[in-house]
């Protein structure tokens, strides 16, 4: 009985490729720059080393500039991106400052805007080979690989992009590409899918309860010169992120033209 049974099972498996695939775990290769058995996927034995990293515990809220401080800098766009910006600004002026928004409020802003949102805090989780940023806004998760891997060769355009980082002393230096060209630098400031961001994130030497993110953006198609802006976050040591299920409370639904009422 045994042999015919095995032959039958093998024949069935061959005849049902979908079933066979469901039963098998995906076996991805290590990413470029990470050897077999190393990197973020193999954390055991590397947790103690995390104690050498700076103390970023608690949650962090974006800080407003001090009263009377200068307005934040604006990107310098060029070409068709500048034209799009000007058309957008003209439309907003004609509409008493209210911007049209062509997607649901339940669509998250993605990078880099999501790192500069005033209302929703962040937390930074260290584990071997990676830093994970949980964002209350839209309950988004951002992964920064710190295990020495290279960027993906051709990452799928996405809201968070492809982020790799390294520790330069107590500063996390993050390099991000692969951010979707449908997203924006800030509201009304478009960029291309060649947008590139470098962040230097560190505690403020003058105040360990302030985290500083020095952001530098370049884009050979959209930006006439690199755009630099610094975000600051204040610590709430024992705070926690709240749940964010946008559809529970979406006050800005999309109308029959695909637009929402306001940006």
């Amino acid at each position, binding site marked *: 009985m045994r042999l015919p049974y095995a032959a039958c099972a093998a024949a069935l498996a061959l005849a049902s490729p979908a079933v066979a695939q469901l039963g098998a775990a995906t076996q991805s290769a290590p990413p470029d720059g990470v050897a077999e058995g190393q990197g973020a996927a193999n954390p055991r034995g590397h947790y103690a080393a995390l104690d050498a990293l700076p103390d970023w515990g608690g949650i962090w*809220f974006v800080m407003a500039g001090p009263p009377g401080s200068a307005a934040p800098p604006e990107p310098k766009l060029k070409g068709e991106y500048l034209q799009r910006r000007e058309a957008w600004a003209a439309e907003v002026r004609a509409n008493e400052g209210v*911007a049209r*928004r062509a997607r649901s409020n339940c669509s998250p802003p993605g990078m880099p805007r999501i790192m500069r*949102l005033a209302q929703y805090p962040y937390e930074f989780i260290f584990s071997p080979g990676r830093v994970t940023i949980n964002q*209350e806004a839209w309950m988004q998760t951002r992964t920064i690989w710190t295990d020495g891997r290279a960027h993906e060769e051709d990452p799928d355009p996405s809201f968070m992009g492809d982020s790799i980082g390294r520790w330069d002393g107590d500063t996390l230096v993050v390099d991000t590409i692969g951010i979707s060209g449908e997203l924006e630098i*800030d509201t009304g400031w478009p960029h291309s899918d060649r947008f590139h961001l470098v962040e230097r994130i560190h505690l403020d030497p003058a105040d360990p309860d302030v985290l500083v993110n020095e952001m530098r953006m370049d884009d050979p198609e959209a930006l006439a010169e690199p755009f630099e802006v610094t975000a600051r976050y204040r610590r709430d040591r024992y705070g926690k992120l709240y749940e964010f299920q*946008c559809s529970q409370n979406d006050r800005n639904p999309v109308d029959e033209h695909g637009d929402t009422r*306001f940006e």
Partner: protein
Amino acid sequence: MEQTMTKLGVPLLCLALAAAAIPAAAHHSYAMFDMNKTVVLEASVTRFKWQNPHAFIEADVAVGGASEHWAIEMTSPNNLAQEGWKRTSLKPGDRVRIWVHPLRSGARGGSYVGVRLTDGSTLGDVG
């Protein structure tokens, strides 16, 4: 909708230039609100929604012999918690005084500034 707030007869106990800072880079722009104007509503709460992206108050406001229904947008619950708010701070039926920056359009809505609760305590900026 084309009428001004004053023509609508909204009880303008307070109509002042507000020094409150406009939240920067928030979930959405505040351009639809007149952030330079504050109105005070004698309100009966009909609904208090304690959820992201924005908490919300809906309330009936007596104007003369009539009643207007107002929708008031707040910041995120986590930000509100930092100034003392809780999910249970308001409940339907509570009679409260609410300070808001009204919608520019004249529609009966606004951006939350502050509140005096039924027990007389206050949250936010009650000027």
